[in-house]
């Protein structure tokens, strides 16, 4: 198993937002996390690169293993950990730099200074993110000159440049128009062969189109976790059935 969550409970102060969640994720698969707003799916996603560490007063119980290693172990260097786990956010968040510098950023902060290596990696990452053809002539332009959809693919390229093995995506297409959204989905499909991907989404068509497995969260609980096809066509729990048929949420 690439990723394992074992009896994970998570608290913001007194509020328990994740209730005893266990889940195993295989290498090179896409797992969709769905559920109504506030169900804890984003919080769960952000546990895997320890992004929740930034929140004052947050507390975790249970274990999260990546490649068999507990990432909340005291000996873990958080910066090193985050290099192996890319993250794409809900809103495109390019840095106030050029397109080139955005992709090179991850390498530079991790101590890579060889210009040839960086240049090669920038090109390769932009190609992987299906953005190269659109930006190859304006790498020195500000990232803000790009459209929203292009910015989001730039952020994906930026994440890929540090060569992670896992990609966490927090509603990566929710701020985009339908066409850009489809492009991101196609990209997810292509990236699956080399990355283990977790994607949080509100869009159930997107979940069913892009993922191998789907996890349905409700009120901090993992209600159901199964093959995407099974979960959408033949859910075992009534709550899942009600959610995917649009009866609530």
């Amino acid at each position: 198993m690439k990723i394992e969550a074992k009896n994970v409970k998570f608290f913001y102060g007194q509020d328990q937002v994740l209730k005893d969640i266990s889940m195993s994720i295989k290498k090179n698969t896409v797992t969709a996390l769905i559920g109504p707003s506030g169900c804890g799916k984003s919080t769960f996603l952000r546990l895997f690169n320890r992004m929740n560490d930034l929140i004052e007063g947050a507390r975790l119980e249970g274990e999260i293993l990546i490649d068999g290693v507990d990432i909340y172990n005291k000996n873990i260097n958080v910066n090193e950990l985050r290099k192996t786990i890319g993250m794409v956010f809900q809103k495109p968040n390019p840095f106030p730099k050029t397109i080139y510098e955005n992709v090179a950023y991850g390498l530079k902060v991790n101590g890579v200074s060889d210009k040839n290596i960086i240049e090669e990696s920038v090109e390769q990452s932009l190609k992987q993110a299906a953005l190269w053809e659109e930006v190859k002539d304006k790498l020195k332009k500000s990232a803000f000159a790009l459209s929203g959809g292009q910015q989001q693919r730039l952020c994906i390229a930026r994440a890929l440049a540090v060569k992670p093995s896992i990609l966490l995506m927090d509603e990566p297409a929710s701020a985009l128009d339908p066409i850009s959204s489809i492009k991101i989905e196609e990209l997810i499909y292509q990236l699956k062969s080399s990355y283990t991907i977790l994607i949080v989404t509100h869009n159930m068509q997107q979940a069913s189109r892009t993922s191998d497995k789907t996890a349905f969260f409700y009120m901090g609980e993992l209600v159901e976790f199964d093959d995407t096809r099974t979960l959408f066509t033949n859910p075992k729990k009534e709550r899942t059935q009600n959610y995917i048929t649009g009866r609530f949420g």
Partner: protein
Amino acid sequence: MKEKIIEKLLLFCALLTIFTTLGIIAVLLIQSFNFFKEVSFFDFVTDTEWTPLFSNKRYGILPLLSGTLLTTLIAVLVAVPIGLIIAIYLSEYAPKKVRSILKPSLEILAAVPTVVYGYFALVYVTPFLQSIFPSLSGFNSLSPGLMMGIMILPLVSSLSEDALYAVPKFLKEGSFALGATRFQTAWKVMVPAAFSGIAVSVILAISRAIGETMIVAIAAGQQPRLTFNPFVPVETATTYIVQVSSGDVPHDSIEYRTIFAVGMSLFVITLILNNISFWLKRKYQATYS
């Protein structure tokens, strides 16, 4: 009916400030115009001596500007690096509690009357510096410059901190997610993202230092001198205005008009700085909206 009166009253207050400003500008312009009828503008901006109160009158503003520039430069060299470091610490490192105590305490620095800073520079800082640099004069630009730096420090730190704090959280997270450390994130992402706000804070601090009067009048001396040596007495433009307007120079004389020409020069400089900061704000704002 009552609403109408209130509305007119409010409008009147707004207009009053505008007319006051216009009035000041008009007086500056008229008096400067009269001044330049007697003194050539070319001499004013190129002559290296400023001696309007002596029998051998010279009207070169450069010595006054160099005094102003030197004290301002020293102040900025103190306030900008320290202010920026404090701002980064407060917005990126300090726990909420520390921030809520430290930020208001820093702002108290701005509430200290400037005459206290001036006095402090003259009777404590200068003697202390003289124990390190024996060649330091009793009046000099170093000591008031340093004090002025402390005075404008909260302006830089507080406004820069506001600018850093206003950078969207997801930008910071984007950097952390790539394995960047806090310092790398602060320096390479947050500071560039908050650049316009930081630049505006620096420009405001410079304007404040250029216009500052009391500290330099007390501790920098009254000797107009074209120099960049921080150890010797100088005179700033503001000090000169104080010196003449509190002295017994007859009104409607050329000596009297010099202060309007000097005041006009200060006004033009701060006006330019204000415009730069306005332009910077507009140019870089709304990138993340």
